[in-house]
């Protein structure tokens, strides 16, 4: 790893407007469904209307007679695709199971499964014709309710070695709390509809504009599915209209669009409807059971966390909800176990902070209930069981400033003015409640390669296959490149999300920021080395004796670190070497440090106001204090955490995918009936980044921010609702019927 440039930090750490801002406010930013071309054919999907069974007969005759319809593809007439599970397994596919293959055969595995693709000259014609495709089914029994499969769920995660005896310690504990919590199925609902435009060109590669968080994942997947060579398919996705995990795995529309383009030998666009997006992956409905045993002084003796999540019948997707509970707080006895129930639904998938948004909701709700039982302030309880070490691995952290999150968050919120008893605070007719929760996520780093092409006029193009799904990757890479190359940010151009660019995995898990930025630094180091090598050859070079560690790039010059007026301009070096451009590519390298745990943390403080008569809950104030190492761009970082808090408020109060378990079908599959927060739902949100120096994790001392902002938010809201009303709602979302109903019952 090259050392980062330490002399000129003009951009890194400074609030910087998005470099893609102008494209986004003028409509110039193009998303997957925005690429137009002459001769484009449009697709429309026909979905299954049963949860399980087989297609006995499918009749596209009437649809095909609609003028303008080009073709109707079903399992009966589809082009050849690969027939091994291996070919269909993308980078994010679960190890076990058989990935879904659209239009593969007559089996119906879930409601809203695509069963036909209509292709037409215009989208409206395709949509109309899709309504004319007639289907007969042979239905089979199905189950879509996790509670009906709770006892059959399969264990997928548990510790290799048990820590103490949690059951025994719980039974003997001075104070106990035990309860079930429930998070319903949630859908990501990014604003952009899932879309693919597949550009067909005779003799050329198929260029696929796809809504995805990982162009190379999709490219390799398509090559496998359609048995193509790598140079025959190119996947591009310069802008992604939100994804939140929904775009980690290739979705079925990309398969169908490519299938259509190959069959018609013509460019095809397929945009799913909002309703059809409920046939994609989702945050799994999860039942969580927490059992906490404590001493009267608030130290924990026993933590048990068991969860049952959901997946399809054909793939075993899960994220461990329960490990967080054993990791976060000091307790001599701890046990966790995550199980998964197979239902007749699509495979579940990652949704922002998968496993933690849900698991930590349950843990932090239970901790609040324990604080009530102990008659202890909730912040104080967390300080009593504070752990300086990862409790699962028994490792110290590269950095952990969660204590400062509690302190700074509480101070900004005014927590010391909280009256501990429920229903003790009012604002006119509204009951006021203050709740808090902790958050935790991983600080992962993955291999990413970056190419830099610098020209003699002091411009640099930085290229990488990574995606920017709205997280600000373009901007922080430009900041780091500008600093590492000693150039103004305006002279940096970032190219992302093209499968032909240097390799990067999917953007997710909060790993891309640190990974991509250190790939920029590593590659900039190569550019600097090349410049030094050339500069030393110059006659009378002031850097003749310099070694690599001595020099840095600053203000368009290669200069001595100790004596910044001693140097040569980049343009002089390149002119002297008769070079028009220097091009380097390198992959980041992180120290292999198995002796430390790497995590981000947060403390979330929430104020709710509850209308006592109507039960309406409003979140009026949130303070989120985050410890995530060094913050590269306070402006976009604040937005990212703020947006995650909004997502957490949605999770707490609004979001729920509702099934009719008798039909095995989602009944609120649009964005009017599936509620997400709107502007009027959101009030003051303050984001604090506590100072968390980290000399161990990476040279910049940075950690990712994509997930940490949502973790703990739902619990903090639920805890605030309890504090306001005295009503403990343990199944999300906290809707007014639950607030009112239980209050009357109490």
């Amino acid at each position, binding site marked *: 790893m090259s050392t980062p440039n330490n002399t000129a930090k003009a951009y890194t750490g400074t609030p910087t407007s998005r470099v893609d801002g102008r494209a986004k406010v003028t409509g110039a930013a193009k998303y997957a469904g925005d690429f137009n071309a002459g001769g484009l054919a449009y697709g429309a999907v026909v979905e299954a209307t049963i949860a399980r069974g087989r297609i006995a007969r499918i009749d596209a005759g009437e649809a095909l007679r609609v003028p303008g319809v080009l073709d109707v593809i079903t399992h009966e007439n589809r082009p050849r695709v690969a027939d091994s599970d291996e070919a269909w397994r993308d980078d994010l596919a679960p190890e076990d199971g058989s990935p879904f293959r659209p239009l593969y055969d007559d089996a119906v595995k879930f409601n809203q499964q695509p069963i036909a693709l209509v292709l037409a000259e215009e989208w409206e014609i395709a949509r109309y014709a899709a309504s004319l495709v007639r289907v007969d089914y042979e239905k089979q029994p199905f189950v879509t309710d996790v509670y009906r499969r709770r006892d059959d769920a399969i264990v997928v995660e548990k510790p290799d070695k048990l820590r103490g005896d949690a059951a025994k310690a719980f039974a003997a504990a001075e104070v106990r709390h035990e309860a079930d919590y429930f998070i319903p199925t949630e859908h990501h609902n990014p604003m952009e509809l899932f879309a693919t435009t597949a550009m067909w060109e005779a003799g050329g590669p198929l260029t696929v504009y796809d809504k995805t968080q990982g162009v190379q994942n999709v490219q390799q997947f398509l090559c496998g599915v359609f048995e193509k060579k790598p140079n025959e398919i190119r996947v591009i996705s310069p802008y992604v209209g939100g994804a939140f995990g929904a775009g980690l795995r290739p979705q079925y529309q990309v398969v169908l669009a490519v299938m259509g383009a190959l069959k018609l030998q013509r460019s095809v666009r397929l945009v799913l409807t909002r309703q059809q997006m409920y046939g994609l992956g989702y945050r799994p409905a999860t039942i969580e059971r927490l059992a906490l045993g404590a001493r009267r002084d608030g130290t924990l003796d026993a933590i048990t966390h068991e969860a049952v999540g959901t997946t399809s019948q054909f793939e075993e997707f899960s994220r461990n909800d329960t490990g967080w509970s054993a990791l976060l707080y000091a307790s001599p006895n701890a046990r966790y176990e995550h199980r998964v129930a197979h239902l007749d639904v699509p495979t579940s998938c990652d949704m922002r902070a998968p496993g933690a948004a849900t698991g930590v909701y349950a843990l932090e709700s239970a901790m609040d209930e324990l604080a009530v039982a102990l008659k202890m302030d909730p912040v104080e309880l967390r300080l009593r069981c504070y752990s300086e070490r990862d409790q699962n691995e028994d490792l110290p952290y590269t950095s952990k400033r969660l204590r400062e999150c509690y302190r700074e968050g509480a101070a900004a919120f005014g927590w010391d003015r909280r009256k501990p008893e429920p229903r003790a605070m009012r604002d006119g007719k509204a009951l006021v409640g203050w709740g808090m929760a902790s958050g935790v996520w991983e600080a992962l780093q993955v291999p990413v390669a970056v190419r830099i092409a610098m020209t003699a006029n002091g411009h640099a193009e930085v290229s990488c296959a990574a995606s920017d*799904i709205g997280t600000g990757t373009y901007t922080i890479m430009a900041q780091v490149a500008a600093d590492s190359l000693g150039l103004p940010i305006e002279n940096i151009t970032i190219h992302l999300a093209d499968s032909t660019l240097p390799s990067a995995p999917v953007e997710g898990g909060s790993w891309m920021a640190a990974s991509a930025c250190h790939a920029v630094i590593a590659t900039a180091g190569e550019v600097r080395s090349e410049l030094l090598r050339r500069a030393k050859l110059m006659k009378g070079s002031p850097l003749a004796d310099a070694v690599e560690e001595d020099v840095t790039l600053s203000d368009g010059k290669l200069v001595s670190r100790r004596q910044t007026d001693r140097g040569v301009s980049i343009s002089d070096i390149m002119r002297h070497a008769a070079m028009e451009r220097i091009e380097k590519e390198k992959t980041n390298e992180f120290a292999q440090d198995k002796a430390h745990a790497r995590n981000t943390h947060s403390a979330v403080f929430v104020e709710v106001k509850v209308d006592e008569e109507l039960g309406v809950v409003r979140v009026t104030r949130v303070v989120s204090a985050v410890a995530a190492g060094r913050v590269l761009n306070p402006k976009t970082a604040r937005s990212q955490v703020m947006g995650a808090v909004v997502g957490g408020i949605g999770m707490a109060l609004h979001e729920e995918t509702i099934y009719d378990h008798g039909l095995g079908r989602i009944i609120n599959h649009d964005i009017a009936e599936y509620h997400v927060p709107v502007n009027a739902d959101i009030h003051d949100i303050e984001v604090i980044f506590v100072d968390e120096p980290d000399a161990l994790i990476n040279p910049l001392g940075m950690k990712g921010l994509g997930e940490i902002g949502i973790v703990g938010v739902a619990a903090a809201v639920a805890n605030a609702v309890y504090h306001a009303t005295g009503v403990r709602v343990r199944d999300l979302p906290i809707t007014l019927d639950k607030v009112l109903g239980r209050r009357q019952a109490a």
Partner: protein
Amino acid sequence: MQDGAVHPGASPSPLPEKVSVTLIVNGIERRFSVLPWVSLLDALRDHLDLTGTKKGCDHGQCGACTVLVDGRRINSCLTLAVMRDGAHVTTIEGLAANGALDPLQQAFIDHDAFQCGYCTPGQICSGVGLIAEGRAKTADEIREFMSGNICRCGAYPNIVSAIQQAMGAKP
């Protein structure tokens, strides 16, 4: 069809004739022919190559397709192109004049009022419409009158700040 009925001989209804429509889009007269079932949104995107206006639901639920028609903000997915013959339509592509951003576009950049950017054209057109309506005075009123435009990235507080800046109000 779930009743098991098969219609092997059925013929679909014939398609209607295309209709000629004239719109003044971003100050330029555009004449085109579309089937009468084409929404204004799809006419802009698929027939006039103005893809800055986004489709997020096609049902008037999300606001991503908001444009200004004769100065008023509407969901372009809820109106047919043929119903707007002769209308003046302003899309996100038409807000900047000679390369200079509209004050609200600049305010969105200044306040980081977006992340993924997909709802942004609709938010900005809606905000321009709101400012022209002149009825939002307070932050709460802005929140209320901007609630037809969903932002899943959760940029709402920054959107309110950006609109306040463009309104010339104190943040």
